[in-house]
């Protein structure tokens, strides 16, 4: 198998991306959801930032709060069951949690846009693709005559490499191939030249070769427009391939975040460590996968202490008493953070799992 393992190449690419200042900063975000079992913290004090032009990954398992975090940023948490109960979401210094729905509508699409899980179902079946791309354009750029609108739509379709965009414009979604639909969704996402695109598990349902096409498309879009992407996924492979920095969510909290390389090379939180080791590798055969025992505890059954403690092989008494603080500067890099009591000991590390 043709594999290059040259860190220098990676470095080079990252720099080539022209990563700029911080665009979005989320501080101690708390989104609570009312369920039959009571109010549960779906997002439980999440803090991170995203710089211009970078790809920030949010990775975690179902129920970890990934999607709720994304929805909260867009202020689309399902009301009234869910509500933001604390924290700030600063977009260029403006706190989105303080904005009214009407003001938020000016942010959505224009400043932050989103790509959903399934490009196949995120187009409305009863409208033409041109219509759906144009809809956003008219909102962002005001009324315009049909001709200009059409020209702009075609321009956008060209940007996402749609062949013969003049013809595609009047197609209904069901008349297009899957790849075309992906591109159309991409065109909608960049139609307003947003600062940030949130991609919510955009490739989960795709085949490998199609996934590869799509990921390349996203990368192209980013290169062309310099947009920041928040990539929400459960797949470490995608993180490895696409992201600059990553945050690992577990039960509504970020347990570890940092650059992708730092995280992969020096996973500091036992959960991150376990996750990385429980994924079967394409590159080599492992004798036995690491497997994390049990499953995440539902919020209403949670005891005090670290949420991961009951599944953690390194847990000590303290882990069951209080939630650990966040430690910075792990693996010698600033910005590599993790929540684990064991990290009080600066030299402690989860022991490498020998497969």
């Amino acid at each position, binding site marked *: 198998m043709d594999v290059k393992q040259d860190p220098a190449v990676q470095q080079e690419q990252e720099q080539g991306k022209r990563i700029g200042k911080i665009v979005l900063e989320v501080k101690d975000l708390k989104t609570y959801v009312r369920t039959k079992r009571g109010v549960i913290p779906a997002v439980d004090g999440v803090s991170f930032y995203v710089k211009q032009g970078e790809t920030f990954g949010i990775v975690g398992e179902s129920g970890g709060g990934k999607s709720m975090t994304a929805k909260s940023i*867009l202020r*689309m948490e399902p009301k009234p069951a869910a509500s933001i109960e604390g924290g700030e979401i600063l977009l260029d210094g403006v706190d989105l949690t303080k904005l009214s729905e009407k003001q938020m509508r000016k942010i959505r*699409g224009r400043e*932050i*846009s989103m790509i959903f899980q399934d490009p196949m*179902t995120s187009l409305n079946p009863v409208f033409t693709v041109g219509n759906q791309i144009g809809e*956003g354009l008219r909102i962002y750029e005001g009324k315009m005559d049909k001709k200009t609108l059409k020209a702009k739509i075609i321009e956008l379709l060209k940007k996402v490499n749609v062949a013969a965009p003049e013809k595609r414009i009047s197609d*209904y979604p*069901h008349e297009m191939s899957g790849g075309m639909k992906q591109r159309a969704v991409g065109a909608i996402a960049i139609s307003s030249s947003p600062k940030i695109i949130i991609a919510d598990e955009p490739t989960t349902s795709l085949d490998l070769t199609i996934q590869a096409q799509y990921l390349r498309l996203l990368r192209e879009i980013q290169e062309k427009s310099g947009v920041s992407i928040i990539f929400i996924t459960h797949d470490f492979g995608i993180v490895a391939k696409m992201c600059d920095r990553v945050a690992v969510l577990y039960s509504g909290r970020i347990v570890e975040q940092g650059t992708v390389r730092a995280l992969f090379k020096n996973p500091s939180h036992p959960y991150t460590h376990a996750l990385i080791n429980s994924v079967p590798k394409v590159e080599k055969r492992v004798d036995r996968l690491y497997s994390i025992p049990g499953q995440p505890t539902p919020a209403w059954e949670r005891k005090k202490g670290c949420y991961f403690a009951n599944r953690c092989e390194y847990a000590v008494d303290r882990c069951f008493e209080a939630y650990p603080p966040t430690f910075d500067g792990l693996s010698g890099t600033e910005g590599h953070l993790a929540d684990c009591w064991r990290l009080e000991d600066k030299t402690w590390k989860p022991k490498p799992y020998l497969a």
Partner: protein
Amino acid sequence: MGKYILKRLGQAIFTLFAMSIIVFFLARLSGDPADTLLPAEATQEHRDRMMALWGLDRPTHIQYFLFVGNAVRGDFGESLRLPGRDAFNLVMVRMSKTAELALVAMLFAILLALVIGVFSAVYKNSPLDFFGKLIAILGQSLPHFWIGIVLIWIFAVNLRILPTSGYGTWKHFVMPAIVVGWFQVAALMRLVRSAMFEALDSEYVQLARVKGVSPMKVIWKHCFRNALIPPLTYAGIMLGYLVVGSITTEIVFSWPGVGVLVLQSVLARDYAVVQAISIVFGTIIIAVNFLVDILYAFIDPRIRYH
């Protein structure tokens, strides 16, 4: 697509054929028309003469073949009860009045159901949802005739803003259409509501919201079009219900439609008219279902035909 249409057409024709058999024997189920139509004083000779006149002295299967042969040409014979009147014409004249009423009623039902359905889906579990549902269900919770009588008393006798009954101006349409249509609102509303839930849940609606489309536009442009489709498929069944309702409603509002005709014809064993009514109704319902199937395929081309 062509094959699909042909297949549906074949099914529709078969359904009609099977229906004709049922209708034919149903009409003969309840005895001789002579017993109802002739005065009690009539003699046997008188009776026999009438039976021969109407062709009822022939064997049943021959009557059936004659019936089918003529029915295909729209000839159901003369009404037994209204001699000299062509049964088919008689039905069609009345049917047009019923159709007018049904159309207005359907329009009313669809409008109200859409508004209630959409709002009660969007504002689920709110007072709006509750009242919307209440109004929708109320139309179903009392018999047509009673709602009709109540409306007559309120709007015609007390307030005098609408005519009590009869056919004529647009004002005559208001109350019967409400009565007939209201009964359908609940069912339609449920369809719209669940379709709206589906649409509201969909990613394309989320995408629209992310695009910054205003909530009203999300609801009325993106969800609404999709929520329209399921009620459409209900149109055929709805017609059936409309007929049930229109008969009692027409009697209360002395609407000159098929309602009274149905009642009188069946009670009078007016074979010709009963058959004409059933076949015309059945054909309309089958045709509407057929059209809906076709239309459905056009409106929502995602449908796959297996």
